[in-house]
């Protein structure tokens, strides 16, 4: 079975993302720093099952957001996102 069949998406990372952000961000828009594509966090492709959360750009596969729980710390690399747009009103999504 290929890793593509196993992959989830940003929706599955929603709980972990709530540890990071004050509100749900699966409807937030993120621009890929590598290729410039813009899309909702919920549409990013999720890999890394078990070791951490890796959200990749559906257009170019670049890692946009990486999150790992280590003892005492939540480590985050968001360098793959150049700009994120978080809606003020969640119900408009």
């Amino acid at each position, binding site marked *: 079975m290929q890793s593509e069949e196993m992959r989830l998406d940003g929706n599955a990372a929603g709980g972990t993302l709530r*540890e990071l952000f004050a509100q749900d961000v699966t409807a937030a828009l993120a621009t890929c720093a590598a290729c410039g594509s813009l899309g909702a966090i919920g549409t990013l492709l999720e890999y890394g099952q078990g070791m951490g959360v890796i959200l990749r750009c559906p257009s170019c596969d670049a890692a946009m957001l990486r999150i790992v729980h280590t003892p005492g710390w939540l480590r985050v690399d968001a360098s793959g996102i150049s700009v994120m747009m978080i809606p003020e009103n969640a*119900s408009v*999504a």
Partner: protein
Amino acid sequence: MPNEPATVPAQRLEWRVATVVDVRAETARARTLVLDVPQWPGHRAGQHVDVRLVAEDGYQAQRSYSIASAPEQRSIELTVERIENAEVSPYLCDTLVVGDGLELRGPIGGYFVWDIALGGPLLLVAGGSGIVPLMCMLRHHARATPSARARVPVRLLYSARTWDDVIYREELQSLNERPEVDVRFTLTRDAPSGWTGYRRRIDGEMLAEVSPPVAEKLRGYVCGPTALVESVATQLVEMGHDPSRVRTERFGPTG
């Protein structure tokens, strides 16, 4: 207030221990857990909870499950399909009993969500257990006012292996009797004699038959195994539907 857009207050997402108050067999492999969740803040159709199981020796497993119950219902319901040799679903389907505690956090989600105020026409495409969040949307739709429902026609295309694998069978057939609801099934492995529904994997031709015209600007929600979700979403976008209005939730390999 059934017609107002639901908002979920931004609060810390805490792990809480819910109590199983009822269990209901849905199919041979699927079961609904009815839960009493302390201080549940309410939810939107399409959201999920994360469930965490910790063994005596500290071993942990965590999985996400879509909320099946409509936002208007009193208790929270999760429908779980048992996957052979899996970590979590056999425990939830076979071991958990009424009275047990279940640790969860939620509701989670803001992208794969629908409220009646978002309108339609609504196209729901489900593969296997992907029906769960879409059933939540249908249950929410069913509880709207008649005029609100009339403004939002909804069509469900539900792919399952056999008729016995179809979850919520009777309820879906009953909802299908409503004028604004159209439920279609496709069975991919085996069909009962006299079956007049679809008998194959979802393809472009089937999607063209069930989708509203592009000009009607559908709101689409596709959920189930990753391969099905990606194939269906790609085809809907190729047909001309707006990608931001075709929302997807992947359930992984077996969905």
